């Protein structure tokens, strides 16, 4: 039972990541392979704020989202000068740079040693130290993120995002400053990823840079491509299946080390097969 709760919490965190990435990639067509960077900024921001200031978890996580948003505004501004595959390359570049900062700015982040002893959230005297309580908290955050995303994607703003994905240049002729829209959604997505990062940090109570590198960004991409681009439900489906999958592998009897690598093999092959045979994924509205 505890194990199921653990899986559910992981699912919630990755569902938030998947939804936020879906807004950027699936709806707007920006192939951001940098999402783990914002996930990491959120996690580290929360951990450091909790450790060095007296801020409450709920305030700290929002501050983390703002910090991530600011970073995204700067990064997004640079990335918006690139198109398509160059965009992906630039995004990889920024992911590596942020990862490098997390790894090497040791005075602040403690580098490879990571940050241990992160507190669980506390509200009005109640501490979310029980996993079941944390799960409920995570689900609430997921519901909020889903709700905001649903609002965005069903609005005219969402329609503009899809049009940017389809033909950005043609859209601009009809009066849209596409760079503003792209920047806006990139910042929103990054802020949401930071929320997931804060949740992750507080749940595991320990973070180190390895959770926020390129491999993680590729994993998030696999989730939404598998679940289906351009669909919030697809993001949820993808997160659900790809989080549960490694657990299924465990039952096949691999050692934990091998299981971790097997997951990578599966994610990698999944991307290849999806591109070859089913680019719309399970429930996608859009094919790359």
């Amino acid at each position, binding site marked *: 039972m505890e194990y199921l709760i653990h899986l559910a919490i992981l699912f919630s965190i990755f569902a938030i990541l998947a939804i936020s990435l879906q807004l950027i990639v699936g709806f707007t067509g920006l192939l951001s392979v940098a999402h783990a960077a914002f996930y990491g900024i959120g996690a580290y921001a929360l951990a450091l704020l909790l450790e060095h200031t007296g801020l409450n978890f709920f305030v700290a996580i929002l501050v983390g989202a703002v910090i991530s948003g600011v970073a995204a505004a700067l990064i997004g501004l640079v990335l918006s000068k690139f198109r398509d595959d160059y965009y992906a390359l630039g995004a990889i570049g920024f992911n590596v740079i942020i990862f490098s900062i997390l790894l090497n700015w040791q005075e602040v982040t403690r580098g490879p040693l990571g940050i241990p002893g992160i507190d669980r959230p506390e509200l009005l005297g109640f501490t979310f130290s029980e996993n079941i309580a944390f799960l409920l908290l995570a689900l609430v955050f997921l519901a909020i993120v889903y709700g905001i995303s649903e609002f965005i994607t069903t609005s*005219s703003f969402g*329609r503009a995002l899809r*049009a940017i994905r389809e033909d950005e240049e043609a859209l601009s002729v*009809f009066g849209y400053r596409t760079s503003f829209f792209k920047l806006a959604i990139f910042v929103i997505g990054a802020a949401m990823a930071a929320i997931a990062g804060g949740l992750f940090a507080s749940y595991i109570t320990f973070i180190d840079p390895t959770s926020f590198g390129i491999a993680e960004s590729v994993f998030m991409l696999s989730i939404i491509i598998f679940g289906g681009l*351009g669909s919030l439900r697809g993001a949820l489906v993808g997160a659900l299946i790809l989080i549960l999958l490694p657990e299924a592998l465990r039952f096949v009897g691999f050692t934990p080390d091998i299981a971790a690598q097997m997951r990578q093999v599966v994610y990698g092959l999944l991307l290849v097969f999806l591109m070859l045979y089913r680019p719309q994924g399970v429930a996608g509205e859009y094919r790359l």
Partner: protein
Amino acid sequence: MKNALKTKNLSKEFGGVKAVNDLSIAIPKGNITGVIGPNGSGKTTLTNVLTGIHCIDGGVVSISEGGERKRIASHEVFQAGLTRTFQNVRLFEQITVLDNVLIATTSRHVFGSLFERDAAERLSKAEAVLNRVGLWEKREANAAELSYGQRKLLEIARALATDAETILFDEPYAGLFPEMVKLVSGIMRELREQGKTIVLIEHDMALIRELCDHVIVMDAGKLLAEGKPSEVLADKAVIEAYLGD
């Protein structure tokens, strides 16, 4: 007569080839002006430059008696009251027909489009435009699923939905069935009656003769001739340009 569009010594070149070469033309307001010329004469390049898709290399452009501009950004085009259709249909493929049209009606601002108030009004405008081209029944289909003729009609619907004062149609009739041709010509005449300005790039001379008040002929990026359809189409130089092509 006032001008909806004017160019002065306009030039655009690609790798040494002047697609538009020192072109000075005026598009009169409230008329249907045809732009004709053999393939490669620069008609589409001209349209692309006027709508900010290509940058201006030389000369200036004025839109609606506004100032002379050396630079037009594509998003400024709509503001200036200009819109267009694309020769190589550029629809938003993986979204619905209705969405393709609504895009042209809704707020262009990030906040305005997130918190839109008059959605019903915009929807009824989209409905009117789609009904005009006969695509309302297909509103839930993705643009990619339409037939070629329907796609061209959707392009027109999208342009109409902008309520722009000046519309550039780039070969809107290519590939249309006769009934659709009549439909489109009807739309053109209606627009003229409403006081709109139309620039019509076409190859079909019968349509040019039938619809246009004024014709501009381009050849190799330059202005070859202009005037009434009957005059221009009888002009020896024009005939030679087409035959020699």
